[in-house]
């Protein structure tokens, strides 16, 4: 493994942005629209279920940021690792988790992606290479570096995966975090390590302008130049408008390809906006209704829809049909979550803590002096 810092300009220019976009088929654009609308609809039903107290725990809504997850994941392969924070429903769905498994997880049901043990903030989908959903802000950043470390090791040391074209198969890890998370120490440690070790990981800052109730100019220094943070570690860094999925993809895809080819980290300041409060309980004293409206006027779904309609790839009717299909899919997920069985105490409270059952965990041992434990 080379450990010399790689200068940005040594990165091969694989592809230009314009070329990238012309290669995207209409089907793919329609899929992006569908994926984004699925997330929007899913989040609407999630809010409803939360208000009806069917969902517990904390719940962070992704509405407004759909283009970020959909547009970046579209630029990766199905076995590229993804790791994110707690605002994770969008990433889970974009990664291919079923709406059913995602909804049931929030309902705390055993049919959820983690048997209802993790809830809204901890979506995991190992088959789809989604490594969470993490609740400690910023703490997923070194995990992203570690995932990339593993794929680099497999590739360069174990020489495991070889593509049909006989090129070594380098994975690229997508590590998402919020603008608040870049204030954490763990973020800086991860960037330094990733650059020093040439790890193929892209740190994607979903910059929605707020760290909970604190606007970016009040929570981070030099906030207008976030790419300077990546650059200060010798990491290739770009700023992208995260509200326009076509533009996003055309910028991000060649960027990600370069990181993959050169086995180098990347840093993306992805400007976006969240429509809802930080979590489901947020009086939003820190922003105005006008500001929210202003961003809703730049909505990423509406923008792509309009473009597709202008180009004749979408009609009022086909949009209606798409919306109806999505609504059915999400309603089915809610119905599924609702009718799924709740976890049973004996079966679920004491399992999955260690690989094998441990004697101390059993309820029969909890306060009995000298009680016999059935697991012994």
């Amino acid at each position: 493994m080379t450990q010399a810092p790689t200068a940005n300009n040594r990165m091969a220019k694989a592809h230009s942005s314009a070329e990238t976009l012309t290669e995207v088929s209409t089907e793919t654009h329609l899929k992006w629209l569908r994926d984004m609308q699925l997330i929007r609809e899913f989040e609407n039903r999630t809010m409803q279920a939360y208000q009806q107290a069917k969902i517990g725990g904390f719940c962070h809504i992704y509405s407004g940021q759909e283009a970020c997850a959909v547009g970046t994941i579209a630029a990766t392969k199905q076995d590229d690792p993804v790791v994110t924070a707690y605002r994770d429903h969008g990433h889970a769905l974009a990664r291919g988790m079923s709406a059913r498994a995602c909804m049931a997880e929030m309902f705390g049901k055993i049919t959820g992606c983690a048997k209802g043990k993790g809830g809204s903030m901890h979506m995991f989908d190992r088959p789809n290479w989604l490594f969470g959903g993490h609740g400690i802000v910023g703490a997923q950043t070194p995990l992203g570096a570690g995932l990339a470390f593993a794929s680099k090791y497999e590739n360069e040391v174990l020489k495991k995966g070889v593509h049909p074209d006989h090129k070594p198969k380098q994975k690229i890890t997508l590590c998402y975090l919020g603008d608040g998370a870049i204030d954490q120490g763990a973020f800086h440690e991860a960037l330094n390590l990733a650059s020093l070790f040439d790890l193929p990981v892209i740190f994607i800052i979903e910059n929605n302008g707020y760290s909970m109730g604190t606007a970016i100019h009040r929570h981070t220094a030099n906030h207008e130049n976030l790419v300077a943070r990546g650059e200060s570690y010798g990491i290739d860094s770009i700023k992208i408008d995260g509200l326009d999925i076509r533009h996003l993809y055309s910028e991000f895809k060649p960027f990600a390809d370069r990181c993959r080819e050169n086995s180098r980290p990347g840093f993306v300041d992805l400007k976006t906006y969240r429509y809802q409060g930080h979590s489901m309980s947020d009086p939003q004293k820190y922003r105005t209704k006008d500001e929210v409206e202003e961003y809703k006027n730049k909505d990423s779904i509406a923008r792509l829809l309009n473009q597709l309609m202008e180009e004749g790839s979408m009609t009022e009717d086909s949009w209606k049909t798409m919306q109806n299909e999505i609504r059915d899919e999400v309603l089915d997920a809610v119905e599924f979550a609702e009718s799924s069985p709740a976890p049973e105490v004996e079966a679920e409270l004491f399992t999955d803590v260690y690989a094998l059952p441990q004697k101390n965990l059993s309820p029969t041992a909890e306060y009995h002096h000298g009680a016999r434990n059935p697991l012994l």
Partner: protein
Amino acid sequence: MPEMTLVGAINHTLDLALRNDPDVILLGEDIGLNGGVFRVTDGLQAKHGRDRVVDTPLDESGIMGSAIGLAIAGMKSVPEIQFDGFLGPAYDQLVNHAGRMRTRTRGAVTVPMTVRVPVGGGIHAPELHSDSPEAIYAHHPGIKVVMPSTPRDAKGLLLAAINDPDPVVYFEPKRVYRSFKEEVPEDLYEIEIGKAKVVNEGDDLTVVTWGAPVFQCLAAMDELPDDVSIELIDLRSIYPWDIDTVCESVRKTGRCVIVHEAPLTAGFGAEVSSRVQEECFLHLHAPVQRVTGFDTIMPFYKLELEYLPEAPRIKKGIEECLAY
């Protein structure tokens, strides 16, 4: 006397402390403009200004470390860590700096800091937002740990903590935040750190607990036959803790049940049990019992009440101890 919730009492006390002592400074994520996630610091920034109620970036290590820096320079810093689980990134600063500064400098440099942390389960929050890590911090010499369960105690202990020359971790049981009101005196008063409170006097058995389970214990006691007389002790201070009050009680009753939310193994109940056994051996009619959370991660909300020591489980523990 005005009636206050736990949240109200803490807010009122912080307000008083800020008003009476220019050295007091509050810092934390969203504590100012937003008033804190639990609204504990609501209105304080508007009243006392941005210089004294400081919104910080999202960086627990930075918050804790700079609060220690403020304190060693002579300020009475009161950092807030939003939830129990977020103490993780701040842990290094707290135990490796705050807890050791006095010893390291032979008393030349001290840390008069009060770390406020909402703690415990029972509000349908997930793990990292429901944990009870008091034993971890009690284990580290140089740090004091308190956990009031009532508005009145919250005020007295908070003033004691702020004025204490050493670092105090002040845990606020979220489940109690708004669960009831009581009259809170408006004047300045302190409750000595290290003093337990006998909530209910009794002769047959001593229950020792702290934080939100105080109320689960009371509920369990309500379910017991009238002729069973339980002495309930709210420890309030986890470290230093009131060995005398607890042991005096156990010497009287001969039986002891300890209740806490944290997992059983190496929970603070293990320390209490061990001490009781050392000091009261010849008075004990039964082994000391513990009714606690399990040695598992705090489960997601559907199973939360199965994990927490709720009244039925406490009642069973008491009955078994009595019947031994």
